[in-house]
Structure formats: structure tokens, C-alpha cells
């Protein structure tokens, strides 16, 4: 699904800054998209591709921090790296609390930026991967019957087939049947895998 190359979005109102960051990231072969404003970025964002955004805190119209909030709301996979000409401490604190990967002060060290971009892209890819797995799991689990769901919940809770049969007041044989069916429907090869999937936090 995520076969497209990762994309670096550069959002800054200063054309020189925009262009120079693009010049830098292209030197290491990244694909990049430059945007003059937050709204323009939202318009072109492809959330299915691993991506990160190098975002100026201070922007005309929708500000950098407001854009971050909007991305959180959408559950976007895009990693956010803030850059600022001001070194504005309160803004930096707020940005980091909301999951920004870094807050770099202009002029920034190229290696630090590229490292952060790499980390952000990796995180973004992971998020997308997890999100697709989750989606698959959810779709499969949606096929389970009422009795199968009840059994699954007890399996995840770590109960044996006998205990489940006793709890649900059914035969052990019936429990074994339900377990087999739900394992097939979820596509899990073992109970341990099933438990691992089910305990994962939702992505975003």
C-alpha cells in the first residue's frame, strides 16, 4: 500500500527558506513538496504516504501550531518538525507536548534536520503500517458472531477452554469450535499473535 516514496512537505512563507530547505533535502534524494501556507499544505497532503512536514511556527493565516492541532484531530501520520526564527520557548513546549518531533531554530544544522526527517519518516511509515494492520484486524473481527466475540474476550483475558466453557455454561467442545472459527476469521496463526494484535493501541 505504501509503495510511493516518502515525501517531505516544507511549509514556510519565506520563499528563500522554502527553497533552501528543498535544496538541502533534495541533496540526499528526498522527494519534497513546498507550500506557502498551512492551508495549501492541507490541500495537497497525501496521508497514505510516509511523510513529514518542516513547518515554520509563524505563518500568515493558519499558524504552525494550529496546523499541528488540525493534523492531530485528523489522526494524520505526518511527522511534524517545527522550525522557528524566534526560539519561542512557550510555543516550542506546546508543540513538543502535542507530539512534534523537534523544534529547530533557524539557522539550523543540516545534519540534525536530516536526522529528524529520517526519524519522522520512519515513524510515519510505522504508523501507516500499524494503521493498515489495525484496519485489517478490525475488518476481520467484524465477521465474528456474538458468541465468538465473548469467547475471544475470555481468551485474551488468558482463560482456558474449560474455564470459558464453565463461564459460558457450554460444553468444552463448543468452546474449541468457536476458538477455531475466530482464529480463522482473524487470520491469526496463534493465540499469542491474536493477543498481541488486540492489545496494540490504536494508531495516530
Amino acid at each position, binding site marked *: 500500500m505504501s509503495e510511493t516514496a516518502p515525501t517531505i512537505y516544507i511549509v514556510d512563507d519565506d520563499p528563500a527558506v522554502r527553497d533552501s530547505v528543498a535544496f538541502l533535502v533534495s541533496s540526499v534524494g528526498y522527494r519534497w513538496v513546498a507550500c506557502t501556507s498551512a492551508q495549501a499544505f492541507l490541500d495537497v497532503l497525501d496521508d497514505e504516504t510516509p511523510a513529514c512536514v518542516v513547518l515554520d511556527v509563524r505563518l500568515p493565516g493558519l499558524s504552525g501550531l494550529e496546523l499541528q492541532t488540525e493534523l492531530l484531530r485528523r489522526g494524520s501520520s505526518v511527522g511534524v518538525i517545527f522550525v522557528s526564527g524566534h526560539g519561542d520557548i512557550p510555543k516550542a513546549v506546546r508543540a513538543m507536548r502535542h507530539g512534534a518531533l523537534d523544534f529547530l531554530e533557524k539557522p539550523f544544522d*543540516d545534519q540534525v534536520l536530516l536526522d529528524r526527517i529520517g526519524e519522522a519518516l520512519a515513524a510515519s511509515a510505522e504508523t501507516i503500517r500499524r494503521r493498515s494492520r489495525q484496519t485489517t484486524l478490525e475488518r476481520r473481527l467484524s465477521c465474528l458472531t456474538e458468541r465468538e466475540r465473548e469467547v475471544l474476550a475470555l481468551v485474551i483475558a488468558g482463560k482456558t477452554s474449560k474455564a470459558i466453557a464453565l463461564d459460558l455454561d457450554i460444553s468444552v467442545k463448543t468452546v474449541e469450535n468457536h476458538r477455531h472459527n475466530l482464529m480463522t476469521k482473524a487470520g491469526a496463526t496463534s493465540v499469542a499473535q491474536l493477543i498481541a494484535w488486540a492489545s496494540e493501541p490504536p494508531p495516530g
Partner: protein
Amino acid sequence: MRLIETARSARRTVVVLAAMLALLLAAIGFGPSAGAAEDTRPVVRVGVLAYRGAEVAAANWAPTFAHLSKTLPQYRFEMVTGSTAFLTAAVAANRLNFLITNPGHFLELRIDYAATALATEQDMNGSYSDESVGATILVPADLADVQIVTDLRKRRIAAVARDAFGFRAAWLELLERGVDPFRQTDLLFVGYPVEGVIDALRSGRAEAGIVRSCLLEQLIADGTARPDEFRVIGRKPSGTLPCQVSTRLYPGWPFVKVAQTAPALAAEIARALLVMQPAGGEVVWTDPVDYRLVQDLYRGLKVGPYALFTPLGLRDFLWEHRWWGMVAATIAAWWIFHVFRVAHLLRRRTRELQRAHEQARVKGERMEHTVRLSLMGEMASSLAHEINQPLAAILSYARGCERRLDAGIDPEGVLEGVRRIAVQAERAGSIVKRMRDFVRKHPSQQLPLDPSRVFADAIDLFEPTARGRDVRLEVDIPSTLPRVMADRLQIEEVVLNLLQNATEAVSGVADARIAVKAEAMDHVVRLSVTDNGSGVAPGAIDLLFEAFFTTKPEGLGLGLSLSRTIVEAHGGRLDVDIDTPGATTFWFQLPLIEEIARV
């Protein structure tokens, strides 16, 4: 002690004089023994010029007085001796009936007091009555280098007095030989009696002396002078007069009647004089002679009655009016002092004023500079950001180039990156230059310029600040405007002040907007800055343009006051409109050059 001595000596003098007078009067048979108390005869006062002192005069004229007393016993004759000045004063005061004086003095009295001559003195030696008086110029016999009259130049010459007849006679002779005694010789006036001249010659105080004719012969006869002691300079023929003279001869002394004296008395006196017989080889009296020669002398010398302003008269005048003179001199002195003082004060005040002007100018420039620095301080963080942008870009470009070169890829990209580095470096440089220009100290100079450029520069400089404060700038400035006479930086400062002010006013306002509009109007260019901020408090409107009035915690309170000062120095106006609700407009206007030229 001294006083007592002085008093004693004065008393002694009085006693001696009194004794002499008594002797004298006794000698002419007219002593106090005649009984002044019961003597009721009319008094006839006769003044006598005492050119050799009272004693000699009295002795000289004693025979005449004796004759008169004998011939006219019904009168009591009183001799009054004195100098010409004294006698003139006595005539003026009507204290004399007659007087015996020299021809020159008589001439003055004839003209000034209508005096007439009753008789003329005739020398007993038989000279003619109309040539019996002259002057003799003497030098010590051993003074070899003074032989003729012109040798007297630059010599010290002693004479009795400026108005003595002898001196005047000699004066004319000297003048006729081209020697002006007052300019070309050193004159020494020794005063009466005439022996003072001889003393001056003997003591060496003078090298030459002017004396009355026959004085030398009298002194030799007396034995008071040796015959070989003095030599006569510039000898003239002396006719029948047995004396050496240096001047022409003038008539002898007249017996003068004063105008007020009764003609009957005068007739009696004249008759008595003419019948007087020479008693012992002294003077006798003849009919009065013509004194025209004397008149010519006086006219030639412009002295006596012919003086435009006689020395005596001038001296008298000055003396008489000395108090007024002193007052006038004081006033004149005070006035001169005042004039100099005023001139001095004026110079000093002018200097002070110039210094004060200079100080005010320097102070004004310093204040303007302070406000500019303050404005720059308020914009500093925005401008720092503005400079930081190109620096950040440069760094990224440089690193990008480095990575391309390391990887050996994209040579065109490297070239492009380097070009963009140059562009960004220039951008940073121009921002720094603009800031430096703005805060640089500079002498104020107004030049013809297009204000649109100045307005645009100021707005460019302010733009980052507006952006940093989330203020929208709506700029409406034509690309060209009519020219004005202005100091670029000062006008830029005014625009920035207004923008800064407006930004403060809209802080905290949602949708903060500042509209900047420039337009050419009739005769002026006008720039207005309108904000949608909180407006001006009613109480503050009057104080807005006062120096040090501010509503901001960090403001200097100089911005608006200084801006108005600057605009007014450009012949323009700066003011505020608050009439539209929700909009405050500060505006200023500058006169167009064409308008200035027309006025």
C-alpha cells in the same frame, strides 16, 4: 604748626604791603594822614597796568598822579594796579574812571567797552609819541648759533604772557619771517612781572626772551644787567627811541577814559595832563595819537578783539560754565561708556544666542537620534528575524552544496545553490544597511525628492514588525508623487513613528489592520495612517503631541511630538482625525516644491 606758619607769613605779607602802600601814598602827598574819614572829595579811580609789578608801576606813574592831584585838588585820585585781565574786569564792573595801559589793551577796551584815549604817553627822551613802544628779542650773548630771527625755530622762548603787548609785537615779526611761534618754537610764559623772562634766560629755562622795548636799557642803567650779558635779535630801526628793538614801534601808552566817565571830568583831566611838564626826565602826555598801527597788528595776529574766539574768552567761557561742562562731559562719558557697553553686550548676547541655537540644534538632533534608536529597538526583534531568514537560507544552501559535492552528484544544482547563496547574502546585507542608515547620526539636510520612495522604504522596514504582531498592512502608495523638499531619514522616521503608534493601538485587537495611504493633493503630499485600534482617549487628545506623554510602559513619549516638530520644520502639518468611529487616522502633509517656488 604749618598752618600757623602759613598764617603768620600771610600776615607778614599783608603788613609789608600795607606799609609799602602807606609809604607810596605819603610820597605822592596823599597819605592816610589826610584823614580818610572827613575826606568827602569825589574819588577818581585810575587803573594802571602793572607789567613789572605794582611797585614799579606805582613808581613809574607817580609823577602823573602827583601832577593830577596838584592840578585838580577837588578830586581824590586813587591808583588801582593790576594785569590786563584784572583791569578789563574792573572796567566791566564800572570800578574805574580812567586807566593807563598799553596800546593793545586799549584797543580791546575801545572796541569792547567804547573806551577813548585822552592823551598819549611821550617818552621824555624826545621820541615821537606815535612810535615809542616795541619789543626786544633777547638771547644770552654767548648763544652763538642764534643770530637772526629764523634761528629761533625749535628754540625755547620765554615771554610774559600770551596777551602781553610785547609778545604780540614780536609774534607778528616772527610770523612775517615765516616762524609761527606757537607751532615752531617752544614757548614759555612766565607771567608778570617782566623780569621773569630775564630770570628764565639766566637759569637756562629759555634760550630766547621777548621783553618790552627799553627794558634791557633800563636794566643796564639800574645795574641789574650787564651790558654784554644779552644780545638783541632781529634789530629794527628805532627812530628817535634810544633803545634796541626787534619789532616796529607802536604808539606809547594812552591815558584812557572809560565810557561811563563824565565828559566834563574827562575834559578837566585831559587839560591837566597836557599841561604837565617833564619833572625829572620821565613821561609827559601829548594829544592822543592814531592807534591804527596797533589795530593792524591785532588784526594780523587775529587776537584781542579780532580773535574769533579769544583764548581768554574761551577760557572764561569754559570756567564760567564748568559745571555744565562737567555735566556734559559726564553725560558724554556715560554715553560713550553706554555705547561701548551696549556694543559689547550685543556681541556677547549674539554669541550666547548663537551658542544656544547650536545647542538647541544639537539637542534636537540628539533627541531625534534617540527616538530613531528607540524605534529601531522596538523593531529590533522583527528585524533580527528578517536578517535571520536569509542567513538560514544561506546555511541550508551551503550544506546542500556540500552534500552534492561529497556525493559527486548534480553539478548544476551546486552552481544554482551558490548563486542563491549570493542572492541571500545581498538580501541580508541590504537589511543591515537600511537599519544602519536609519540609526546613523547625520546632519539634517533637505533635498528635493519623490516622497513615494521614502514612504515605501519606511513601510518595508516596518513590514516584518507588522507581520510579527499579526497586523495586516494595507498599503496604498502611488509609484510616484510630486517632489517635496525633505530630509529622507527624518520623513522615514515620521512614517515609522506613525506605523509604530498604530501598531501599539491595534495590539490585542482581532483582525488588526493598518491602512497606509499616500496621495498628492492641492499643493501638498499627504500620508495617512489609519488603524482600527482602541482609539485615543478623550483626555489624551490634547496631550498627544506633548513631549514625554506616553501611554506605553516602555515608550519614550517623544515619537509624536518629535514627528510634529520634524514635519513643521519641513513647512508641513501633522495631526490626528478621530471623528470616524473605530478608525484613528494620523496624517501629515508636506508642501510641494513647486508650491514653495511659487510663494
